């Protein structure tokens, strides 16, 4: 007989106390200090409430009240893996790296599980994450067991790497908190296609934290396809730091999950660094998705572009919060942010909060937000050409999403995303019909 897991922040802290001596890297003093510090921060803050500005539109009570256990992954279960996009793939099951399911022989760079590699991560793990600021990062830091460490050496074109994150636990609510460390050394490049999915009916929490370093002149394209089960929670936090002349492109598709937060912190730390942050959120009945971005321009001559598109059907809620901070040193910053929402149902709701904070004087920065419905005139025009209404609607929705995808510079990644979006959207229309 198993006892019901304790709920709320207390439950997670209780579990941390119990697991503490057995967590990976438990004997590494620096890591022990990091975990204890995170636990202290989480104890002090608890789960964020809507009284906190950064969480004004997203209520985590459903997560806090759930009461999660550790996942009990059955190892020799014949897992059905979806087809890979490229030759190299790293597979995580319930947050744990599975070399047996991965195919990394051709990768040409290092991809390893975090747990065995922990002794070598002093100074790297925790370099960018801020557990004292973000409670979910504190939770991750306290309890992470595994994740990926990806290092692309200087000058290497790493090609395409698939990351598949699979949840399998379907008996009891389970929580996993993988920590991923990604570093592209000088002039290296890599395209990451990360897919997260799980059983349709399972209630689980996937709480990943990414620490990403893009060194001078390196380029990382990071496409994230969030297609978790419809009862899942995914709360993810990305920290990226881009050095001079480097580029970080993040595209996130939010299509699955019941309650989803996609929080991205990017610092453009050296001159002429660039960042594109794009995303599409496709939400249906009962879904809530929140994209929150913090873009810090800390150096001169950097450019950033953000385009987020949300399509809301049924009773669903979308959130976009985007802050651009331009430091005094960041002269000749070129910043642009646009977020647009399409409401397909009278029960859907969109909240958006763009924010600019500028301390430099020679700066070009703009932002915009729109919320609207499908254009009746466009719909009529398509129908007069013989296109049935349902098909005309999906054509207009796909057209609405196009702009977000157009920002993806990597053509292979863009193709994969377009296919994923079309698939999700078709799924949504079938459900609506």
């Amino acid at each position, binding site marked *: 007989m198993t006892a019901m897991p304790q709920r709320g922040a207390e439950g997670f802290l209780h579990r941390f106390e119990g697991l503490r001596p057995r967590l990976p890297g438990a004997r590494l003093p620096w890591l022990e200090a990091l975990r204890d510090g995170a636990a202290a921060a989480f104890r002090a803050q608890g789960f964020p409430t809507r009284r906190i500005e950064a969480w004004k539109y997203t209520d985590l009570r459903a997560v806090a009240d759930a009461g999660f256990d550790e996942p009990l992954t059955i190892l020799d279960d014949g897992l059905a893996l979806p087809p890979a996009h490229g030759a190299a793939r790293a597979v995580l099951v319930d947050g744990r790296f599975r070399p047996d399911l991965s195919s990394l022989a051709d990768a040409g760079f290092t991809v390893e599980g975090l747990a065995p590699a922990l002794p070598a991560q002093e100074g790297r793990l925790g370099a960018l994450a801020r557990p004292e600021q973000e409670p979910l990062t504190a939770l991750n830091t306290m309890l992470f067991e595994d994740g990926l460490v990806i290092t692309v050496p200087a000058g290497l074109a790493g090609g395409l790497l698939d990351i598949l994150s699979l949840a399998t636990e379907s008996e009891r609510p389970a929580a996993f908190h993988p920590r991923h460390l990604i570093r592209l050394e000088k002039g290296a490049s890599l395209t990451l296609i990360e897919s997260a999915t799980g059983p349709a009916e399972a209630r689980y929490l996937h709480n990943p934290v990414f620490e990403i370093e893009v060194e001078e002149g390196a380029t990382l394209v990071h496409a994230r396809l969030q297609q978790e089960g419809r009862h899942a929670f995914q709360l993810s936090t990305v920290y990226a730091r881009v050095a001079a002349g480097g580029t970080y492109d993040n595209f996130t598709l939010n299509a699955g999950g019941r309650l989803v937060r996609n929080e991205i912190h990017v610092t453009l730390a050296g001159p002429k660094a660039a960042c594109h942050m794009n995303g599409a959120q496709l939400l249906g009945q009962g879904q809530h998705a929140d994209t929150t971005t913090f873009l810090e321009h800390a150096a001169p001559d950097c450019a950033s572009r953000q385009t987020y598109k949300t399509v809301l059907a049924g009773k669903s809620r979308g959130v976009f919060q985007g802050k651009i901070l331009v430091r005094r040193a960041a002269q000749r910053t070129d910043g642009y942010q646009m977020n647009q929402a399409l409401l397909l149902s009278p029960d859907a709701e969109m909240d958006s909060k763009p924010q600019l904070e500028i301390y430099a004087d020679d700066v070009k920065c703009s932002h915009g937000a729109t919320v609207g419905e499908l254009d*009746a*005139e*466009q719909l*009529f*025009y*398509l*129908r*007069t*050409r*013989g*296109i*049935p*209404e349902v*098909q*005309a609607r999906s*054509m*207009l929705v*796909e*057209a*609405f*999403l*196009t*702009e977000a995808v157009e920002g993806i510079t990597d053509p292979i990644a863009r193709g994969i995303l377009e296919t994923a979006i079309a698939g999700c959207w078709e799924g949504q229309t079938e459900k609506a019909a």
Partner: protein
Amino acid sequence: MLKIEGLTAEVDGKEILKGVDLEIPTGELHAIMGPNGSGKSTLSYVLAGREGYEVTGGSVTFNGRDLLAMEPEERAAAGLFLAFQYPVELPGVGNATFLRTALNAIRRARGESDLDAMQFLKLARQRLKELHMPEEMLKRGVNVGFSGGEKKRNEVLQMALLQPRFAVLDETDSGLDIDALRIVADGVNALRGPEFSALVITHYQRLLEYIVPDRVHVLMGGRIVRSGGPELAQELEASGYASVQAA
């Protein structure tokens, strides 16, 4: 082909069409002329089935079917085509995708098989050539960034691809220079034949020099007030609509 009887319609609670009677037999091309505000565009939108244009009385029969009971896409599948006075821009929808989707929707409704991308491209290139339009028009977003003349030519291109049995051209001549006007007229004339009918709505007589109608009707105050042969258009050009009202 098309028979309109006692058609009344209102927009925003205001009666615009006040009893239109009009019959266009198969194989004929008729023109409707009239001053601004006479109900010309309302008539074209009612025929195409636009929301907000409420039919309050009368009937429209299209090849023996009740046109007003059909959805806009069903009307298109039955062979009706409206060339818009103000073609709509569709950012993010490629013109080629749009044209192929429309063509295949109509082919499906006719019980024909879909054209694949290559078959479609071959057909589209041929039509573009006939209309003196650059192939580049296929690559752009539908009507996005098109000049007024390009938008009108894009309407004619759609018509040439969809091969309707009945076309309504709503002021397709407005905003066109003389060269574009000729191209548009050639496009319409190419479709003319014993199985094709059309209703050309225009404010000016100019277009009718290139597309010679079988009959001309004058729409004023929501009614057809006069009908005649192609010479009626010239008469209107000479003496204006005021003379018609007096008659």
